[in-house]
C-alpha cells in the first residue's frame, strides 16, 4: 500500500523529521486559505500516487493567491497523468541550497535492510544510480541486530555532514528505521532531502506499507476500506476480491491461477500477436464465486474484445472454475467470446460442466491462446 505524500509527511513529523510548513486542501477555496496561512511564495502539490507527478504539472509554485487558484483549479479539474486529484498540499516554498537522497528499504538478494543515500538527490536519482553507481552509498543493516550507532555514523560520514547538520541528519537516519519498523514499511524514502536556510527539510515523502502486514495495522486497513486510493473501479473490485489485478493497454482480457501462470498467459497472447488488456490472478483454490467475479470484472471492461481463461488445477478445482464461468456468462448481459484452457484437478467434471453449457475448451494452452487471439480479432 502506497501512502500519499501528505500521509507520509504526517508520519515524518511524528518521528521528528522536519518537513515544510503546509496544509491539506480538498477544494480550490481551501487551497487559497491554506496559502494565506503559509504565505508566499508557496507550492501547490497534487496528492496522487503515480510517479513523475512534477513533470506532469502536479507541482506548481505560486507567488500570489491567483497563482494558487489557477494551479489548484487545473489540478482538481484535469487530474494528473489521468488520475483524478482529490487533495492538494499547499506548502511554503523554501530556498534549496542542495538536494540529498536518503531511503531505507529491503534488499531481497542480500536479505537485509539497506540504506541508500546520495549527495545528489532530486528527480534524476535513478539516472545517477545508472550512470554513477559509486555516487550512491549503501549501508546494510542485519535484521538480527537492527540499526546500531555505527550504521548511522557510516551514513552521516559518507554524506560529509558536520556539526549541527550531522546531528540533524543523524536523527533523520534513525527516524527512517523507526518508521520502517513501526509501520511495517517496505520503503521509506526522502527525495529530495533539501538543505535550506532552515536546515534539512524532507520536501517529499515516499512510503510503502507491506501489504502482508496490513492485518496488524488498523490505521491503514481502516483507511483502505473507505478510500479508493486512486484505483479505477475495476481495481477497487479486484482489491475487494483479493485478486492480483493490473490494467494494461491491450484488448484481450486474461484470467489465470497463480502469478507465474498468469504472466505466462500474457506472454502467450503476445506471442501469438494479441494484446493483453490486463493481468488477473485469481490465486490458488478459487471457488466458483471468485471465478464468476473475475470473469464479470473483465466483461465489464469496455476495451476487452475477448477473454482468455488459463487454469491449471492444482489446489484449484476445474469443476469450480467451470461452474464460475457458466454462471458469469449466463448472468451477465454483456456477451463476449471466451477461450478456456482447463486441465488438472477434476478436469473431467469441469469439462462436462462446460460442454453442457455449450462452451468448448482446450487442454493445450498454446491452442487456447491462439484461439483467444483469433476470436478477439478475426471473429469465430
Amino acid at each position, binding site marked *: 500500500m502506497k501512502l500519499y505524500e501528505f500521509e507520509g509527511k504526517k508520519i515524518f513529523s511524528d518521528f521528528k523529521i522536519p518537513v515544510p510548513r503546509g496544509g491539506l486542501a480538498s477544494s480550490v477555496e481551501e487551497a487559497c486559505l491554506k496559502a494565506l496561512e503559509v504565505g508566499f511564495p508557496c507550492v501547490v502539490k497534487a496528492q496522487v500516487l503515480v510517479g513523475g507527478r512534477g513533470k506532469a504539472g502536479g507541482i506548481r509554485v505560486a507567488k500570489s493567491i491567483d497563482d494558487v487558484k489557477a494551479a489548484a483549479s487545473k489540478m482538481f479539474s484535469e487530474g494528473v497523468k489521468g488520475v483524478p486529484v482529490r487533495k492538494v498540499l499547499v506548502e511554503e516554498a523554501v530556498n534549496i541550497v542542495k538536494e540529498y537522497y536518503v*531511503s531505507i528499504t529491503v534488499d531481497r538478494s542480500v*536479505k537485509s535492510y539497506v540504506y*541508500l543515500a546520495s549527495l545528489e538527490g532530486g528527480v534524476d536519482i535513478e539516472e545517477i544510480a545508472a550512470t554513477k553507481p559509486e555516487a550512491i552509498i549503501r549501508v546494510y543493516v542485519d*535484521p538480527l541486530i537492527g540499526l546500531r550507532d555505527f550504521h548511522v555514523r557510516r551514513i552521516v560520514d559518507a554524506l560529509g555532514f558536520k556539526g549541527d547538520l550531522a546531528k540533524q541528519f543523524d536523527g533523520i537516519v534513525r527516524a527512517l528505521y523507526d518508521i520502517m519498523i513501526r509501520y*511495517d514499511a517496505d520503503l521509506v524514502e526522502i527525495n529530495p532531502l533539501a538543505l535550506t536556510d532552515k536546515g534539512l527539510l524532507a520536501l517529499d515523502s515516499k512510503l*510503502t506499507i507491506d501489504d502482508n502486514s496490513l*492485518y496488524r495495522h488498523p490505521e491503514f486497513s481502516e483507511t483502505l476500506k473507505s478510500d479508493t486510493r486512486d484505483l479505477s473501479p475495476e481495481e477497487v473490485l479486484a482489491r475487494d476480491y483479493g485478486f492480483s489485478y493490473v490494467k494494461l493497454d491491450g484488448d484481450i482480457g486474461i484470467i489465470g491461477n*497463480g502469478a507465474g501462470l498468469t504472466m*505466462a498467459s500474457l506472454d502467450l497472447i503476445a506471442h501469438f500477436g494479441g494484446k493483453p488488456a490486463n493481468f488477473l490472478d485469481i490465486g490458488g483454490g478459487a471457488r466458483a464465486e471468485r471465478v464468476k467475479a473475475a470473469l464479470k470484472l473483465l466483461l465489464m471492461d469496455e476495451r476487452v474484445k475477448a477473454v482468455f481463461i488459463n487454469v491449471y488445477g492444482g489446489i484449484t478445482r476445474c469443476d469450480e472454475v467451470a461452474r464460475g464461468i457458466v454462471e458469469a456468462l449466463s448472468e451477465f448481459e454483456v456477451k463476449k467470446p471466451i477461450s478456456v484452457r482447463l486441465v*488438472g484437478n477434476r478436469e473431467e467434471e469441469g469439462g462436462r460442466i462446460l460442454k453442457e453449457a455449450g462452451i468448448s475448451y482446450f487442454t493445450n494452452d498454446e491452442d487456447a491462446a491462439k484461439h483467444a487471439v483469433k476470436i478477439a480479432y478475426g471473429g469465430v
Partner: protein
Amino acid sequence: MPIIVDRNTVLLVQGITGREGSYHTEVMLKYGTRIEAGTSPGKGGMNVSGVPVYNTVKEAIDKHPNINTSIVFVPAPFACDAVYEAIDAGIKRIVVITEGIPLHDELKLISYAKLKGVIIVGPNCPGVISPGERVKVGIMPERSFKPGYIGIVSRSGTLTYEISEALSLAGFGQSTVVGIGGDPITGLDFIDVVEMFFNDVDTRGVVVVGEIGGDAEERLASYIKSVGLRKPIIAFIAGKTAPPGKRMGHAGAIISMGMGSAESKIKAFESVGIPVASTPMQIVELARLKFRWGV
C-alpha cells in the same frame, strides 16, 4: 538420492488440523510420504488421517525422534512462530507453504535460519517432491510428476505443475522438483538449489522456471559464470509482456540496477549457455535438444 526430501524424510506437519493442513496430510500420506506427527496448539491428543497431533513441536519430537523435516500450513500471523519452534526443536529442513507472511518477520526469520544452518523452502511455495522415491512435502498435484533425471526449480506454483507435466508426458521425469516460493524473501534461492542439483548424482539436467522481478535469475547466471555449467540447464521466464509490478519508489530501481526485466534475465541466462524457451511448451523441445541421455 534426490535433494532435500527423499526416502529418509520423516515429516512433521505444523498446522495439521487446519483445512489445508489436514487435506494435504492425507494427500501426502497417500502419495507415500512418511508423516509421523502433526502439531496444532490446543489440539494435542487428536489425530488426522491416523497421524497423532501434539500441542508443541518439542512434544512431537520427544515422541518421534526420527522426525527430520517439517511442513508448515500455519496461518500467516503465526507462521514465523511455527518455524522458529521447529528450528528451536532442532529440525533442519522446513517447507513453508503459508502465504502472506509479513516481510519484516520473513526477513528476520530467514536470516536466523541461515545462520543456524537450517534449510527453509518458501515461504509461499508449493513445496518439494521427489517422484522416484514417492516423497512429497508440499501441495503440488501428483499427476504432473514422474520419476526421472531432471531437477526443476521454480519461483511459481501452477506454472511449475504445467511445465513439469509437459516434461513428464514427453518422457522427462524428475529427480526432485523444488518450488522456492514467490515472496520477495525466500529461504532457498535458485543458486542454492542448482548447486544441490549439480552435486546430486541422480540429476542429469536442470530446468529453471523464473519470472520477472528481483535478480535471482541474474545472480544464478553469475554463479554459473563462476562455477561453470556443470550440468545442462534450460529455462523459462514468465512475464515478458507483464507490467514491471509494484515499483518500490526510486530505491527499488537503484537496488535492481536495471535487473528484473525479462530481457535482462534472458540475456543473463543466454550469456552463460542456458537457453530460454519462448513458451512453456517449448521447454519440451529444449529438453529434447539439451538433455541427450535419451528418453
